[in-house]
């Protein structure tokens, strides 16, 4: 395959000026001008729907379809919430987009708001992203100064205000209803559904929640047309009627034990091996990989043997992972102890569970305690079965929790036990102990 020409990262890779003038000079806001000039909101929705663009936040829900769930002829305001609470470990693509090319994202926000008739957009940025916050704020100020935000944008009958909202550092606030609660100033506890946000979301008004990267893609879908997106990526699997296809470019984050951790833009469907060997510069220190986390830790684990799995919306599921997730690949080398990996994962989820639903609140804590004990050399063989059972019984998929955090907490544990059980058993049997401090385990 010839080298893919980056689209989302085009200006970023070229180290272009993130300012408004430079962005416009590179063809920025062309899509917006075109849309405001001669497209109705319904046409914008149709274009996005026809392009097959799927959400980049993790779940891969078709973006255009999500917009159509909004009530028609709603008398009150409609809100767009932009999910920039990129808190999935090892994921940093939104950060790059916001820090280095904020206008590309903002143009997507403008287009999405025009399509959904939203009058206000809230960008929920995770607190740790100070630079992204400042870059976005600067870009928003430029837009207000140039009549690209505010009332009657570009002299047309379209008004929009964009507000940045900084989170306070909770993983759960990246869940769409948790985000909305947090935005409203409440504790970030995901809401029970129904009602779905499209019916009753932020401030009890219809709300669309989209990811930063999705909106950046919207900019290009409108600029280049729906058919353009379909030239990139993988068409639906004809054998799987539920597969909506994986079209478009995707920002893949590569981190962990590789020589060159980076974020690359590639068509959906690239394999892990290609990412690691070609773009990540191979596993570090001349070692071999033991496995990887394919798309943020909540998506589960992949062994080295499964590295040829294509990373599209369908691929990871074929090897028992939860899905594509954020497409952030974290590689761990052959010297890494899977016990440490699991402990670290369990510790993260026990810390980040919001504590609302009993199975997740207690289950994540229990799994962490078990892994901690195992790590200290006091594991029992039956712990593996208990871990597996707990991991399988918590989450929105078995129906025992409100949101998907518990699925994410359970998946890597379940995968590890299925794929690395001999190593875990040996560890327990051998009475191995890890003396590495907790802090060091955390930086693995």
């Amino acid at each position, binding site marked *: 395959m010839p080298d893919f020409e980056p689209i989302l990262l085009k200006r970023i890779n070229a180290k272009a000026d993130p300012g408004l003038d430079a962005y416009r000079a590179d063809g920025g806001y062309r899509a917006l001008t075109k849309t405001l000039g001669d497209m109705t909101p319904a046409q914008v929705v149709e274009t996005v729907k026809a392009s097959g663009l799927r959400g980049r936040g993790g779940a891969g829900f078709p973006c255009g379809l999500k917009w159509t769930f909004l009530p028609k002829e709603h008398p009150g305001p409609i809100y767009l919430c932009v999910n920039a609470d990129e808190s999935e470990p090892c994921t940093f693509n939104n950060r790059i987009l916001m820090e280095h090319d904020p206008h590309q994202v903002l143009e997507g926000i403008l287009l999405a708001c025009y399509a959904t008739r939203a009058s206000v957009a809230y960008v929920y940025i995770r607190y740790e992203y100070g630079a992204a916050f400042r870059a976005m704020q600067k870009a928003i100020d430029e837009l207000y100064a140039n009549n690209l935000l505010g009332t009657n944008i570009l002299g047309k009958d379209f008004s929009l205000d964009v507000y940045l909202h900084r989170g306070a550092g*909770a993983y759960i606030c990246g869940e769409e209803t948790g985000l909305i609660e947090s935005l409203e100033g409440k*504790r970030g*506890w995901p809401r*029970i559904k*129904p*009602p*779905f946000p499209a*019916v*009753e979301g932020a401030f009890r008004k219809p709300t669309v929640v989209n990811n930063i990267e999705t909106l950046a893609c919207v900019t290009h879908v409108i600029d280049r047309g729906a058919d353009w997106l379909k030239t990139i990526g993988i068409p639906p699997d004809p054998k799987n009627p539920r597969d909506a296809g994986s079209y478009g470019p995707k920002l893949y984050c590569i981190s962990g034990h590789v020589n060159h951790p980076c974020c690359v833009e590639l068509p959906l469907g690239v394999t892990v091996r290609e990412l690691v060997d070609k773009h990540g510069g191979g596993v570090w220190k001349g070692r071999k990989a033991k496995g990887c986390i394919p798309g943020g830790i909540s998506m589960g684990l992949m062994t080295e043997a499964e590295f040829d799995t294509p990373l599209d919306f369908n691929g990871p599921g074929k090897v028992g992972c939860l899905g594509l997730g954020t497409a952030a690949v974290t590689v761990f080398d052959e010297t890494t102890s899977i016990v440490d990996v699991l402990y670290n994962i369990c510790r993260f989820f*026990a*810390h*980040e*569970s*919001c*504590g*609302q*639903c*009993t*199975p997740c*609140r*207690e*289950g*994540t*804590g*229990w799994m962490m*305690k*078990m892994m*901690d*004990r195992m790590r200290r050399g006091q594991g*029992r063989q039956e712990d593996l079965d*208990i871990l597996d059972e707990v991991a399988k*019984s918590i989450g*929105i*998929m*078995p*129906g*025992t*929790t*409100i949101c998907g955090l518990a699925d994410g907490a359970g998946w890597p544990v379940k995968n590890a036990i299925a794929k690395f059980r001999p190593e875990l058993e040996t560890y327990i049997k051998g009475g191995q102990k890890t003396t590495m401090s907790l802090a060091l385990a955390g930086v693995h």
Partner: protein
Amino acid sequence: MDPDLAVDPRLAPVQESFDGALRTHRRKLQDRKDTKDDGFMAVVYINDQPVDIGSERLNLIQAAQKAGVFIPHYCWHPALSVVASCRMCLVEVGEKKPDGTIAMQPRVVPACQTPAKDATVCLTNSEKAKNAQANTLESLLLNHPLDCPVCDKAGECKLQDFSYGFGHSTSRMVDPKNTPPNKPDIGERISLFTDRCIMCSRCVRFTREISGSAELMVSNRGHHSEIDIFPGEPVNNKLAGNVVDLCPVGALANKDFLYKQRVWFLKTQASVCAGCSTGCSIQVDHNKDVVHRIRPRENPLAQGQFICDEGRFDYAYVNGAERFDRPLSGQAFLPAGAAGQQEYLPLEPMTWENAIPAVRGELAKAAKENGAALAGVISPMLTVEEAFLFAKFIKGLSSDARLYLGWVPRVGKDEQFPQDRHGNPLGAVKFTIRAEKCPNRRGVEEVLKHFQGEVLGFDQMLTDAARLEALYLTAAYPPRLGAWLTDEQTQTLARIPLLVVQDLAPTPISERARFVLPAATFAEKDGCFVNHANLAQQLHRAVRPGAIGRTEGQIFLNLLDRRGLIQAKAVREELAREVPFFAALDGNLGEFGVKLS
């Protein structure tokens, strides 16, 4: 129904929190109802048992209840919003298609959040549902200390009950439990045993949705979540005690009751709170003639689900040692050589056998001399039956005798909840504490109207006192209300030659009485109170009024020279026959009472 309760309290949370799904469902029901004359009937299948829920808006817990199937739940409460977070009520749900086939959903769902729609199939006893419930219980017990032997809730604890009913018998956890510190000062009268908490968040929602004061919150995250208060802001609102009842486990404890009684020793009697004219339905928990605890009893016609702290905690006087337990006689004398001011000998105990004829005889004598100079004061603390007997007795002595309504205590203004921390109302009223601190003004007024056509107030009696020769004064106000006669008023009444005072405990006026008869509290008698909205509710005797005490009803019966023990029901039937206003009281008043009009 209480006009202040804009929304039936049992329906309010359902209306508020079922959100979209229920609204859509309701709309559909409405649509169908509009198109069908006979009304739309929804049929739900609970464990294959069809239940006709009519057009009621229910969740699956309520629908199952109709089928006699209990679905265990912690976070769901009919008066609070639905959060579906405890995951105790997990059931399998499906739909029965018109062709008879059943399509089940692959995952379990919380019954509290699932509206009961027509053709919904709900399995509470399938392997999957039972497993999910047992797993939730195992999770809840992971960090629970299992200190039942020293826990106040043991015996009425939902965690105990459900563990027996729906849980595993053992825990698989071998790791140390979390041991968060207890918070004994979370409220003046409430203590939090943090480690026992199962995070159902009922208490948090109560302070946000019912009291409005929002003192409680959840702090920390994950398995370290705790119920907490904001620093220096304890839960001292006037409805705070309800969080203890709402707590399904022993986390929130009532300090007043803490370590006093094991609940399985308690006996419970349905009663009515005598604290204010709202007339909340209550349960009196007692053992060996001592009242140990007052709890609310659900009554949609009266107050709903809750009671205020005044009603809950102000019962110590019932068990008070200073109360009169026998009749007493007093004697006034003029000290030798002194001019004017008369003094009083200490009150002397009498036997009932002497007291009843003496009181009756003296009053009859006074009535014979000058009927118009005889008066009786009916306290609004008396039951309707007692007021009726008393009026009969006084009017029987002389038709010229006058009856007055006793002192009607009023403290401040009506307080409505939810209200914010500054006392401003927040949305629809869900609870009212009334300024009128007596339970039966309405009932006594109607008795007075029947016997003399008009209601003469207490102030009128004070004005008329100068020309009275004999006065029978009933009182029985709880000591919380303080001195209810000024010194001047006491002096005025003390001048009446024949003064009969009936009260709970010594007061300045009882010291100056010719006869003192003991009074009984709400916990000691049968009868009924009529609340501010004309709802007649029945109270039942929980404890006996002292070793040789008699209730007012018994005393009045004796004064009327009727034989036997007081039977409130018989008196009520007599009342219903004679007084048209009370005609509906003929018979049993049921759990919730009878509305009079």
